């Protein structure tokens, strides 16, 4: 396939900071692009998983079971696609990948990744955020820091607020 169909995120936020992105993204199911490193559809990655310069992206309706999680453990990064920012399945996928399957390397949000969803994404275990091209970096960084406190545990804070309150009330 012609590499002209590859996507490159103009703005990538990694661990809360803008970062130069090395990875290209291909949404073409049929053939591997030439460029490396590149993120490709899951099936294509599974067929070529021995290539360390390839990483998979998961569609939002991916069924993440034990078998798939075991395969993904070898991936240098896992991207999760947001076909529309209103599709909330990616949040559950990221939490499963992190919390249930203990995936340690980069989990990247791709697709319709907008400023106002970044905070929730970061709480669910996305440590890399490939912003949609029209989004502003300064807005994004501000939105990421919108809250200093949360009620629920997440991938970021593992203690529920009710536990923290009890701990603090007990002088711990």
């Amino acid at each position, binding site marked *: 396939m012609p590499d002209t169909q590859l996507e490159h995120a103009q703005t990538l936020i990694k661990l809360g900071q803008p970062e130069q992105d090395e990875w290209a993204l291909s949404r073409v199911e049929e053939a591997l692009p030439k460029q490396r490193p590149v993120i490709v559809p899951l099936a294509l990655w599974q067929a070529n998983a021995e290539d360390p310069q390839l990483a998979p992206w998961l569609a939002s309706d991916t069924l993440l079971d034990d078998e798939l999680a075991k395969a993904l453990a070898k991936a240098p990064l896992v991207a999760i696609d947001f076909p529309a920012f209103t599709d909330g399945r990616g*949040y559950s996928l990221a939490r499963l990948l992190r919390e249930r399957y203990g995936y340690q390397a980069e989990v990247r949000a791709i697709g319709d990744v907008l400023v106002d969803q970044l905070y929730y994404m970061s709480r669910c275990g996305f440590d890399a955020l490939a912003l949609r091209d029209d989004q502003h970096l300064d807005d994004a960084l501000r939105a990421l820091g919108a809250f200093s406190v*949360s009620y629920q545990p997440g991938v970021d804070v593992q203690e529920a607020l009710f536990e923290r309150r009890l701990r603090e009330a007990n002088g711990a």
Partner: protein
Amino acid sequence: MYRYDTYDQTLVDERVAQFRDQMARHLAGRLPEEEFRPLRLQNGLYIQKHAPMLRIAIPYGMLSSTQLRALGDITRRYDRGYGHFTTRQNLQLNWPALEDVPEILADLAKVQMHAIQTSGNCIRNTTSDQFAGIASDEVEDPRPWCELIRQWSTLHPEFAFLPRKFKIAVSGAAEDRAAIQVHDIGLRLWHDSDGSLKVKVLAGGGLGRTPMIGDVVREDLPWQHLLTYLEACVRVYNQFGRRDNKFKARIKILVKALGIEEFRRRVDAEWAHLKDGPQTLNQAAVDSARAHFVEPERRAVSEQDIAAFEALRGENRAFARFVTNNVTDHKVPGYKAVTLSLKRREHAPGDVTADHMDAVADLAERYSFGELRVTHEQNLVLSDVPVDQLEALWQELEALGMANPTVGTLNDIICCPGGDYCGLANAVSIPIAQALQERFEDLDFLYDLGPLDLNISGCMNACGHHHVGHIGILGVDKKGEEYYQISIGGNATDDASLGKILGPSFYREDVPEVIDKVLKVYVEQRHDDERFLDTYRRIGLKPFKERVYA
């Protein structure tokens, strides 16, 4: 009631700042309407027919007098001096200006209020029993549990973009006053034979376009696991609920499609991983939630005062009517809960002016420890009134027009804002309610009819809960004209049922006459003290149909 600590306050303050930023970007053209829309909805802001509408959360219906005064003040400064209490125990402003909304939210935050998740495809305000904590049939006060759920669901990072809205209701009493069977998740708190607290979990109930009664997912969940189990339920819904068709996106469609066994299997499979995780509740956490809902320091009411109250009830017919209909027994002898009727002919059902909000706040302070509840029937409740003060309170309520002795009768109509305000409505609903209240205002007639829920929705989104009214009225649009479909036999309480449609719909002006015919069939056919609902269940739809379409 629940009081914020610095964490709660920080969170709502930061939410206001976040929304201010979003609004500024929107007004500056950096955040287009289709991307701003879910954000504003999750802050309660709709763009309506005539103006924006702001829905303010009243968590499980609990309101302090200070908060009510602040709400009155907000309606004066930013709106037209009145607000509308909804069937989800919230308050709506009908005329705020878009650009004022961040300021309104900031003012709300000053009195520990917000509009978080009062709309949008997320977990909404949890609702409960308006007599929580004081009902004599209560097993467990649901309010601490509602508060734990409120905190768990507020800005839940995984569940901000569910397939559709998600509503949870909690009941802890023998009688279900929270309509738990018609919620996405309904929870019933109960004690097993050892006295340990369990939670019955229902899923897949709901009204709207496809009304359904919820199925039992789990009969006896130990309380420690409430939040992890809810998380499992919502995660299954988030992953498998339909997203291709918004009319088929509620959890009820998923539960129906999978079947309750398969739904339960998936929830249990998910829960197996979450169980005993960091959101598992412990005694200290529950005790600390309960500490916000302590018994007020009620003074003793003497036997003589109780006897004097009963004597007055025997002598004064108007007072007796008020007590019979608008006053509810309390678990503490000498105390009563008083329902303030917001069904007044000169106002839309559930509407209260700012001046009346102030007046009611004063009454709450003088008669009921400064607290109020909002009911899903769109009334207000003062929950702790000593009987020796009932007469004085009654007279003050008379002066406000809130003593209509018609709570629970045909006149106590549940009604959505309808086509007069709402952008979704197919037809008006308030004028229908007013026409019916005018036609059926004779108290003896209303009392003779007995308990009768008449619910009106202006469209099939069913904000007026028409499916579960003993009589339900639904506004429909046919080629640009407003018609009304009438159903009977619905019920929202323990033996919940959905109403059946009588037949072809009616012109607006014919609705009172049709209701009159339905009532006549009941009066002619009922046995002794049989309720409308029971007569209908015995004789079925046919006699009603025959009379109405004769």
